[in-house]
């Protein structure tokens, strides 16, 4: 792409590694003034890492950043501000008990380029005036005197944006700003972003929602697994091309898909609705059935309710309404709603769950392999009442290490010392050892290398052949299409469609992921 203008920001050959993980590999990026650029990529593709280097949170291992054509070193967020770069993070960094104005002026020690004297007066009134001016200019709606704890998520986000503008930023980076917003709030945000563009500001928006890319951005840069894939003009591309670039055509993984045998309904979800504490609907009237001897894949962009769905079934999420019916072999149904994990277990429902957060939920990072095996079994009767049986978990740990080829110094090693793939093997090994009737897994192969991934797919297929109802939440569409018998697609907490894994087309699923019902498929 040729452009005679000087880019506002130019990133050249940027590389960043964390230990052995290459988060960004020789990434090039150009952004011009008065443009909105979407940074598109799947989870873990290095979008946020790249932007963190621009905003001074990380420092690149290699490569050079240019601002307005001049090479710069951005070693801290303060440096970034000096170059007019401001980032609005996914997780807000506001002081709850402060007002909007107090939050906005927090940390500002300069005015019009001059350092304020150390004991200068805290001038909230003129700050409020300036905030109102910014709001009027771009169409924000902020009350400088409102306390943050009284604000909605969207208001908090607005404060974050105003904060960045107040500090004089003219290059704004927004990290998945719409993830927490309703469609109406998103529309409002986009209007403001367009106003900023008209004002000559540079906006970078990190996202993985295709329709937003098409709606708001002038250009789109695509990253995949840390590699820079390409930069396109939004008008000249389409959702399919972007999806192809985002997901990539890799070596075809040949994952077995044994024919389902003895398929019977095992878990029936009816009109399940789950809301967060803030009242945001995470799952909206979700209904489906999971069958024995079948892998039900769940597809969807991050944050569209997969986590809540699995946690709701596992008894970890308060349920607004709906039913989760476990169907016994004799056909009788048990409603699991309102039960916690222990009560579900006591009902004799053997529900294995490999959660997304392996070390924060599935395992105890500081405990060794044997003690982690005990998590599921410690309540079983030991030889002395009230005491844990330590022998069986040790044997299980030995067995898992041997059978799944876990690389570890020993079973007395804390699991936090193991690599991601080995941690996952320990977790999956333990869950399978409980002889589940339902096996749920979330992002089971995230961060795993090819070999470890295959081990996990094999284990899942073995469970399926054993007659287990498998629910597999995945982020890699290719894998989902090869592994699943049926795929349930979620979009914004709603069931967007259920397709047959054998006949479904990747583009069809991709469209379902972004639009309920898939819009106009074709």
């Amino acid at each position: 792409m040729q452009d005679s203008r000087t880019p506002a920001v130019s990133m050249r050959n940027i590389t960043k590694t964390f230990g052995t993980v290459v988060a960004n590999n020789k990434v090039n990026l150009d952004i011009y003034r008065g443009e909105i650029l979407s940074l598109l990529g799947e989870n873990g593709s290095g979008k946020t890492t790249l932007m963190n280097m621009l905003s001074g949170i990380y420092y690149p291992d290699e490569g050079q950043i240019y601002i307005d054509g001049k090479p710069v070193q951005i070693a801290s967020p303060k440096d970034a501000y000096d170059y007019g770069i401001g980032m609005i993070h996914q997780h807000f960094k506001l002081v709850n008990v402060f007002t909007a104005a107090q939050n906005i002026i927090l940390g500002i020690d300069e005015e019009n380029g001059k350092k304020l004297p150390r004991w200068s007066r805290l001038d909230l009134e003129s700050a409020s005036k300036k905030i109102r001016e910014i709001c009027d200019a771009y169409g924000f709606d902020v009350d400088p005197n409102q306390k943050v704890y009284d604000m909605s998520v969207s208001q908090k986000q607005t404060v974050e944006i105003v904060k960045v503008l107040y500090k004089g930023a003219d290059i704004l980076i927004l990290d998945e700003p719409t993830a927490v917003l309703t469609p109406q709030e998103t529309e409002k945000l986009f209007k403001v972003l367009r106003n900023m563009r008209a004002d000559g500001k540079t906006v970078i928006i990190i996202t993985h929602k295709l329709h937003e890319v098409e709606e708001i951005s002038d250009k789109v840069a695509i990253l995949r697994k840390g590699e820079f894939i390409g930069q396109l003009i939004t008008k000249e591309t389409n959702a399919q091309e972007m999806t192809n670039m985002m997901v990539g055509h890799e070596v075809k993984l040949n994952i077995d898909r044994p024919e389902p045998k003895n398929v019977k309904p095992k878990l029936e979800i009816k009109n399940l609705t789950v809301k967060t504490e803030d009242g945001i609907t995470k799952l909206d009237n979700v209904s489906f059935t999971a069958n024995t001897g079948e892998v039900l894949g769940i597809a969807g962009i991050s944050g569209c309710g997969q986590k809540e769905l699995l946690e709701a079934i596992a008894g970890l999420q308060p349920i607004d309404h709906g039913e989760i019916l476990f169907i016994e072999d004799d056909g009788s149904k048990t409603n699991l709603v309102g039960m916690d994990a222990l009560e579900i277990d006591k009902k004799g429902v053997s529900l294995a769950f490999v959660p997304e957060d392996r070390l924060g939920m599935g395992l105890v990072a500081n405990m060794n392999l044997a003690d982690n095996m005990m998590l599921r079994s410690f309540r079983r009767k030991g030889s002395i009442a009230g005491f844990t049986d330590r022998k069986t978990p040790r044997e299980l740990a030995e067995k898992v290490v041997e059978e799944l080829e876990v690389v570890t110094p020993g079973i007395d090693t804390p699991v936090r010392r193991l690599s991601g793939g080995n941690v996952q093997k320990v977790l999956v090994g333990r869950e399978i050892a409980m002889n589940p009737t339902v096996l749920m897994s979330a992002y089971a192969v995230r961060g795993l290398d090819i070999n470890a991934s295959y081990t996990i797919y094999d284990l899942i297929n073995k469970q399926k052949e054993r007659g287990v109802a498998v629910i597999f939440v995945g982020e890699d569409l290719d894998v989902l299409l090869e592994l699943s018998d049926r795929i349930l697609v979620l979009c914004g907490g709603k069931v967007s469609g259920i397709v047959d894994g054998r006949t479904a087309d990747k583009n069809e699923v991709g469209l379902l992921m972004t639009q309920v019902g898939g819009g106009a498929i074709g």
Partner: protein
Amino acid sequence: MDKQKKEPLIHITKRKEISKKHEWAIRLGSILIALVVCAIITTITTHLNPISVYATMIDGSFGSERKIWALLKELSILLMVSVALAPAFKMKFWNLGGGGQVMAGVLATATCMITLDEKLSNGMLIFVSLIAALIAGALWAFIPAFCKAKWNTNETLFTLMMNYVATQIVAYYIIIWETPKGSGKIGIINPNTNAGWLPTVAGKQYLLPVLISIAVTIFMYIYLRYSKQGYELSVVGESQNTAKYVGINVGKVIIRTLILCGLICGLTGWLLVAGTDHTMTTTLEAGRGFLGVMVAWLAHFNPLGMVLSGLLMVFMSRGGGEISTAFGLNKSFGDILTGVILFFVIGSEFFINYQVHFRKSHRKEAADV
């Protein structure tokens, strides 16, 4: 501020693994350095021979049978408080209210001894006061635990404040029961009848508290290591999410653990009044609730390790007292030495967890971009 943007002189990294041998070598090394530093301070400030000062400290703690028994009594009371705090701390419930929970037990025991001494037989009185002390201690721990479990209140602040409440209630009853009137003190309770006093075992006045503390310590060691409840509380401490994931009722575990905590503190209060001191003052607990925190931390919440860390504390305080009297030094001098030694012992934990590298070769990074 350093103007050069070069690699810093020292570079600190977290250790991955450290052998037990290496760990103890660091600890012993730090104590040795501490002793050297203390010797220098002693020589400079008092012109005494540090060797003889150390000898006096050892003599003050272990010099005679009476001194050894006094040390053991101190150690056993401190050990019980520390052991009581262990499960709460392992659960990452920062119970700073050990002192208050002991005082609740003290008050309950004293109340029984003062008001029931003529109504009950001696054995019955001891039994009733024990039950009362256990209940009082448990209640004092239950209140903050319940609020934590129900409303997620801050347990550090809550337990801390409960200490003052307990002390003030004790102060109130001291005035009510003061003997003689106007003295503001209770004095020895039941000095003539010895009603409610614990019997001496095998002719040794302090043998009973020592035995009880040994039993409690062993119990806690087994409880934390081998029981289901001990396992549950360590899962809760490590990750509440994991606890919920496997169906552990976090609130229930918090309350149950703190009640156990309070029971042992109540028992300690009972031993203090009925077993060793036979009186009630507002300072009877003598800061052991806080000292116990330190003992427990130093031992990494391992009850058997607390015997060692507790011994260090008691030795320092008794030895420090001894040198003050023996050499006519200011009473604070012992505290200074204690402070120096603790500083090094606690500081050694840093070197166990982290490794310090000094700048050797110039590492290429940031600077050459």
